[in-house]
């Protein structure tokens, strides 16, 4: 259950960023999780619900965008989508086992949507 530690890292980043911005509330956090990683989005959601109560991120929605695996064949240069289990080049004349992942290994915090304190319009319009 390494998702708990991973979610803790997400929460720490998010709390730091929202504090720096002077946010009053965190509404939404967006992550990208690559389909080739050993990280389970449902487990991240579960960990988020466990870790956020009592923090400024309580009630914030965790949106997880999953990316598909995509590699480039190192022999014929073809780019191809693939699942977790088979990265062999699908071009029949090639079929090389030597490929390099270009998408699917992401584990990234993309952005955070927050509320800022109401600002006084008169001091704003300087």
């Amino acid at each position, binding site marked *: *259950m*390494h998702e708990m*530690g*991973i979610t803790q*890292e*997400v929460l*720490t*980043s*998010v709390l730091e*960023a*929202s504090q720096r*911005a002077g*946010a009053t509330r965190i509404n939404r956090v967006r*992550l990208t999780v690559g389909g*080739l*990683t*050993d*990280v389970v989005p449902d487990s991240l959601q579960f960990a988020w619900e466990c870790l956020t109560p009592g923090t400024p991120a309580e009630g914030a929605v965790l949106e997880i965008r999953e990316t598909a695996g995509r590699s480039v064949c190192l022999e014929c240069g073809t780019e191809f989508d693939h699942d*977790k*289990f*088979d*990265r*062999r080049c699908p071009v029949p004349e090639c079929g*090389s*086992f*030597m*490929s390099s992942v270009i998408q699917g290994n992401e*584990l*990234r*915090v*993309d*952005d*955070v*949507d*927050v*509320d*800022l304190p109401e600002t006084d319009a008169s001091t704003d319009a300087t």
Partner: protein
Amino acid sequence: MEIDLSRPILARNEALADKNRARLATSGVFALDVLASPGAGKTTTILATIGLLREKLRIAVIEGDIASKVDAEKVKAHGIPAVQINTGGACHLEADMISRALDALPLDDLDLVIVENVGNLVCPTEFDLGQGARIVILSVPEGDDKPLKYPGIFAQADAVLLNKVDAASFFDFDETAFVDSVRRLNGAAPIFRMSAKTGEGVGEWAAWLEARVAESHVAH
């Protein structure tokens, strides 16, 4: 308001891993991270490897376990410096644990640090420790289908060790299927058939490791 972060989730671990890597390079030490299931033969393989390389390389071991000092004591009994990390329940090692373990080792007097990760084929995958190479050991009794169940770890291994081949006649292990499924995940990693118990094939694996350590010395 939207705050753009675009930050790796494990940025903190990655920064610490880079620090470990730089520190190891400065001292001319190569770090090997060993991953496998519980019972695949990690400690036995490490001891067999040390047996072949200890006259050529100055070696220490970092043992990662949830609890107990059993593995570090086994290694120390062979006269090899060993540091035990107890993760206290955590299912994998992280870079900060390695950093503290390195504090306890005489790095300037070493060539190779072997890190035995917690027995687990899933959780350690995403956590860079600052290692120079990462290997996965699979043992014959575990079955030939493991690359299909734990693809992440086989995809990123720099070498794959198939251990306990001396017991192959007792199990229905389809080696052709195993090699094929590893290849589909990882075309670059060599696969070494071996038995840490009998010593069969350990020489080929140890020679690969020795070459990697030598390359790292040239590079720095």
